[in-house]
C-alpha cells in the first residue's frame, strides 16, 4: 500500500458552502470556506485568478474567483447553471461539502494600474472575474483615477451583481453604465450591445487601462472598438475562458496556439492576443 504524496496537485481541499445568493435566474454566488482553517488562511489569491470546484460524483471545473482576498469574506464564485457540474453545484444547499483546488493562473497587475483611469467592460457572467478588480479599486480609491464600469446582459434580470450596483456607482469618480440586449416594461436604461455602448461613450484612452471579460464574440468586437478609439494593444487587458481539465499545464486542453490559458493566462493584454496563432 502506498499513499499518494501530500503534494499531489490534483487533490482538492475540502470546503463548505457557507453562503448562497441568487444573482440572476441561472447564476448563483457561492461563498465557500476551506474546512481546514490553516488551508483557508494560506489560500491567497489575486484578482483574475481561478480555482477548480469539485462537485464530487459529477466532476470538477475551473471558475474565476469573484471575491477579493483582502476582504477576507470567504472565497466567492459566480456560477451559471449551464453544464453538468454547474447544474450539480446549483443543487447544493448551505453547509454542503465540495472540493477546491487552486488558485491557478496569472492575475491583473493592479499595482501597474495605479494612477490610471480604470475602464471595466463586462458582458453576462464575464463581469464576475472582474469583480475583484472593482472591489480592489473601490477599497484603494485614492490609488486610481476614474472608475468606469460598462456592464451588459441579455435582459435586465440577467444583469449580474445588480445587488452591488449602488456601491459600484458611488461617487466620487465612479460611473456605472448598464445595458441589455432586450429591455422590458420597467427597464429605463440602454437597450444596446456592449460594443455599441463602448463606441457611444467613447472613453478616452488617455492614461486608461481597459479590462474586459465576456463571451468571446463580445470580447472580439470590444477589442476592435477600443482600437478605433485609439487604445493601444498594451492598454487593453482581458481574461479568457477555455475548456480545461487540470489547471496546471498538463492535460493539453486549454491552449490557444502555443499559449496555455491555465498557466500563461487567463489574463492577457491585447498586445499578447494579437500574437496568438489561433482564435479563442
Amino acid at each position: 500500500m502506498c499513499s499518494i504524496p501530500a503534494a499531489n496537485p490534483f487533490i482538492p481541499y475540502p470546503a463548505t458552502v457557507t453562503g448562497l445568493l441568487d444573482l440572476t435566474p441561472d447564476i448563483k454566488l457561492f461563498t465557500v470556506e476551506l474546512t481546514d482553517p490553516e488551508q483557508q488562511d494560506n489560500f491567497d489569491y489575486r484578482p483574475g485568478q481561478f480555482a477548480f470546484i469539485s462537485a464530487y460524483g459529477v466532476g470538477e471545473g475551473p471558475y474565476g474567483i469573484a471575491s477579493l482576498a483582502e476582504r477576507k469574506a470567504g472565497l466567492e464564485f459566480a456560477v451559471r447553471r449551464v453544464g453538468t457540474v454547474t447544474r450539480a453545484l446549483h443543487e447544493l444547499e448551505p453547509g454542503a461539502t465540495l472540493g477546491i483546488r487552486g488558485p491557478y493562473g496569472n492575475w491583473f497587475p493592479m499595482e501597474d494600474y495605479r494612477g490610471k483611469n480604470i475602464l471595466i467592460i463586462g458582458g453576462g457572467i464575464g463581469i464576475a472575474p472582474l469583480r475583484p478588480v472593482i472591489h480592489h479599486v473601490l477599497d484603494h480609491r485614492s490609488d486610481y483615477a476614474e472608475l468606469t464600469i460598462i456592464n451588459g446582459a441579455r435582459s435586465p434580470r440577467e444583469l449580474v451583481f445588480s445587488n452591488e450596483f449602488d456601491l459600484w456607482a458611488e461617487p466620487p469618480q465612479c460611473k456605472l453604465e448598464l445595458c441589455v440586449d432586450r429591455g422590458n416594461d420597467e427597464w429605463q436604461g440602454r437597450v444596446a450591445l456592449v460594443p455599441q455602448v463602448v463606441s457611444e461613450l467613447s472613453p478616452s484612452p488617455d492614461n486608461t487601462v481597459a479590462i474586459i471579460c465576456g463571451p468571446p464574440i463580445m470580447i472580439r468586437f470590444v477589442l476592435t472598438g477600443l482600437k478605433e478609439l485609439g487604445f493601444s494593444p498594451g492598454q487593453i487587458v482581458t481574461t479568457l475562458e477555455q475548456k480545461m481539465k487540470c489547471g496546471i499545464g498538463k492535460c493539453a486542453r486549454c491552449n490557444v496556439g502555443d499559449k496555455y490559458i491555465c498557466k500563461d493566462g487567463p489574463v492577457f493584454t491585447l498586445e499578447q492576443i494579437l500574437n496568438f496563432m489561433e482564435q479563442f
Partner: protein
Amino acid sequence: MNRIIVDNNLRSWLKELAEKYTLVAPVTSDGVTLFKHVKGSQVDSLDLQYSNTAVSPKGCFFPLSETMFSIGSDGVNVIAPVSTDREVVIFGIHPCDAAGIALIDRVFLAEPTDTHYKEKRDRTILIGLACNAPSPECFCPSVGGGPANPMYLDILLTQTSAGYIVQATTGKGKELTPAARMEEKDIPLPPPPHVTPVPLEGVSEMMRRNFDSPYWDRVADRCLHCNICSYVCPCCYCFDIRDYMGKDKIDRVRSWESCQSAGFTMIAGGHDPRPTKGARLRQRWYHKLLYFPELFGDIKCTGCGRCVRSCPVNIDIREIITDVQKLNV
C-alpha cells in the same frame, strides 16, 4: 571490448528479475505485440525480434485509465488507491519508445509535478533493446533518435551474432547489470539498420507561416476522428478527468483523451474554438511540430511510425512534414 550476454544467460537473468521486480516485456499473441506483465515462466517464449508494439509502453506511467484518488461519501476523506512499492523493469523497450517517455517527462515532471506519473516513473528501470527490424513507416533518426540510441534508457542491449552487447548508461542500469552472466569480447557494435529519413529541417518555421493554409482542412476531410493516432503515440498525453460513483465512495479517474475528439475544446454553453476537424487535426500537428519545440526545443515525435500504420484513412505524418515544406501562404 564490449560486454556480451548470450541469449541463454539473458533469459536466466530475466527470470531472476521477474522474481524481484514486476517484469514488463513485449508479448506477441495472435500476431499483435504488446507490452505486458510477464512471469518468469513466459521469459523463454519472448520474441526479441519484434518491430514495434501496437501501443507504446507509455501506459506503464500514464495508464489508459487510473483512479487518481477516491473520496468518501462525506466528500472529505481522501482515499489513496491501493498501489505497490514494487519496482518495475520494462524489458525490451525500443529507443523510440524510451524517447517518447522522455518527452512526456518534460511536461509531467515539470512543476507542479504530476505525482501519479512520477511515482511510477521513479520505480521503473528501462532495459532497452536496439531495434533491428525498423518498419517501413519508421523515421527515428530524423527526430534525433536512432534504432540503437542508448539515451533515455538505463541499459541498452544490442543484438550481435555472438550475443547481446550490454551498455549501462545510468547508475540504476550499472547496478542492475548482471556482471557474472556477461563476458568481455572484442565484438564491435553493429551498424544500425537503415531507416528512411524524413526532411524535417525548417519544418517549425514553415508551420508558423502556414497556420491559415486551407491545407489543414483538406487533409482533415478524410479524418474519422477515431483518435487512434493519439492512443498509439508514445508521446501524446492529453487526458480527461471524470468522477465515477461507487457504493460508498467516489472515484476520480484520469484517462487518455485526444485533441482529435469532437467537442474536445467545447465549453459549457456551447462555444468551441476548434469546431472543425481541420482545426483539431491542425492542433495535433502544431503541438508536435511547433508549440512543443518552441517550449522545449524538441519535436514531439519519436518517428516510431505507429500513427502512420494505425490510421484507417492513411493520414501520414511523413507526408504532412513533406507537404508543409512546399506550402506557401
